[in-house]
């Protein structure tokens, strides 16, 4: 087996895995903190990708720069959505089930809105560097992959630092670990849940941009992305930022190595097969909920 091909496949896999991790980190947070399984999470990622596409097409704004517009925009939108849709269902007896049904419907609505605005045609993000590569010896690093990877690392680090270092972040963690105790200490659970949801949706936007730098996308692409979201979150451990990032890397490594050693058609089979084996031994994921 050619060492160059193995390392190249590994690099590609890691870059791809990190992008899935950024998309998944918010999904993990809403699941862990609020017990809301947010099925339309990837659809919000797709909205981020479409906003980025439009800003690039009509204003020439680079996708990375456009994240500075779409991320806050999605944050504000998500605050409104939380008030309107999510907050009422947090009073449901079975939040998990209620949230899944509600956000599944929301995903369908969002898909149709996207198809209405941007049409059903597939789109490709093509910034000036879209088909260039950094060449290091025998290895190639496609610029869009590098940018997507960089954005993902940045996004995950920012979320991690926010949760670890800021008062609001600590309140989010407290609300997730001991909601009643956190409330006794004056943490406003409603406000924290809204911030968590909005933060999750805005990271989805950034993740969507990163993924759109790598692949083409259409209004229904979120269904496909959702599979990978579940994958990284389940492997990483629900509600765990570090776990999600690690899961992204591990899935990337497995995918990369499978591509190097096995026929390409086996890659998904191996990835999901290993996931099943992994879950038998670590049903709670890589890192238990106490971590971050």
């Amino acid at each position: 087996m050619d060492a160059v091909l193995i390392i190249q496949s590994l690099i590609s896999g890691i870059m791809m895995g990190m992008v899935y991790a950024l998309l998944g980190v918010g999904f993990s947070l809403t699941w862990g903190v609020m017990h809301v399984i947010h099925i339309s999470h990837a659809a919000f990622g797709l909205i981020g990708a479409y906003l980025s596409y439009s800003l690039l097409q009509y204003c020439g704004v680079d996708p990375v720069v456009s994240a500075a517009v779409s991320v806050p925009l999605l944050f504000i939108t998500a605050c409104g959505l939380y008030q309107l849709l999510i907050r009422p269902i947090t009073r449901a007896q079975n939040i998990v089930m209620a949230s899944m049904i509600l956000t599944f419907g929301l995903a369908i609505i969002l898909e149709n809105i996207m198809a209405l605005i941007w049409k059903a045609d597939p789109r490709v993000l093509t910034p000036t560097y879209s088909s260039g590569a950094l060449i290091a010896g025998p290895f190639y690093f496609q610029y869009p992959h590098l940018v997507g990877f960089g954005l993902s690392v940045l996004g995950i680090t920012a979320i991690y630092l926010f949760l670890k270092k800021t008062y609001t972040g600590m309140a989010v963690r407290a609300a997730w670990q001991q909601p009643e105790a956190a409330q006794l200490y004056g943490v406003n659970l409603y406000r924290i849940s809204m911030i968590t949801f909005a933060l999750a949706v805005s990271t989805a936007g950034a993740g969507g941009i990163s993924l759109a730098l790598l692949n083409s996308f259409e209004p229904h692409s979120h269904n496909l992305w959702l599979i990978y979201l579940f994958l990284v979150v389940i492997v990483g451990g629900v509600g765990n930022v570090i776990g999600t990032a690690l899961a992204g890397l591990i899935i990337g490594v497995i995918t990369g190595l499978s591509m190097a050693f096995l026929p390409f058609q086996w890659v998904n089979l191996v990835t999901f097969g290993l996931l099943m084996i992994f879950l038998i031994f670590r049903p709670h994921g890589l890192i238990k909920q106490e971590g971050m």
Partner: protein
Amino acid sequence: MKENRIKDFSMFLITAVLCGLMLMTPAAGFGAGKTIVIGGSLPLTGAYAETGQWIEKGMRFWADEINTKGGLLGRPVEFKIYDDQSDVGKAVTFAEKVITVDKADLLFGGYPGTAARAVMPVAEKHKYVYVSMGGHMKSFLQGYTYSFGAPPLMGEWWYEGFFQWLATVPAEKRPQKAAVYTINNPVGLSLIDSIDRWTKKLNIKIVINEKYNAPLADATALIVKAKQSQCDILFANGFFPDGVTMMKAAKALDYNPKAIVQGIGSVVPAWVKELGKDGDYVFSGTVLSGQLKYPGNDKLNAYVKKTYNLNEYPLYFGFGYAWMQTLEQAVTGAKTLEQTKIRDWLKKNEVNTIAGSLTFDERGLPAPINFGTQLINGKVELISPKNIQTREPVYPKPAWEK
């Protein structure tokens, strides 16, 4: 008194003339027949929505045209189109519903090949004529008698035109080593047939022959492998998303074989629009083209120019129109809506479509149709056979534009 009689007679005459005129106008007034309902489903949302919507546009253009001309068998036509959301299961359910619940007079063809293939046995069971693209060769080998491909979208024929042209290239200038990457589904796999036959014939060695499952998240490893193996022809047998991923990786890694042949993804307008110059010089095939001199193509081109500002009608717009053209001629020829009579007429007669004149064999297939294409300056040019060539192909592929 006399004056009154003249007045009454005049009124009678006017009324008689008006009634006569109404009866002579088939689609209007008291003499008009009941609307002919043509039912089925299309993927108007979901994965194949872009294509499905073009098929619908082609069908609706035909319906407007025929209704203006006075309808089919003198009756107006109307579509009952369900959105199957790109779900094969739903396409089958809607086909059943259209036939058994809606009691549609006619069935229209669906998309993609997987849906058409699944609807074919439903049409056979209910003895409904089904004119569609079919689901590649295998679907026409099941002994169905009510299904017709007019024209069919046949993966097995897709690269015939390209290979016929390649055979005219001097042997020393032809590619020597091929990398074949195929999406692991019936559409992708059907493309391998002609590659196997022709590479043997032209003495091209297949060095890499791999399948991948969708989604293809990253094509770097595939392209590195092809580049390392010095493959000078790349067959990217897939759809739009994986086709784009592969083209982007090929450019980024500066892999520039003599020819890139792309299956189905490069024939949708989005390929040119989204990839721009990077989508150029890709070889593929087609069964329909607005550049062909068959009657009706100019009219369709003029319509899409006016309505969608396109220079040529998109492939799937043409499919939708051609299937309805076939059904129209069969119904008109059989002079009835009786399905078995329509089928029998189609088995014995020739239809004239924008894909040319077609006659059908016992499988419901016309003689193999395929035209080699190449994207040059964002336009799909016909390169083979020679008599329909719109441009000389660009070969070997120029270096990637930086």
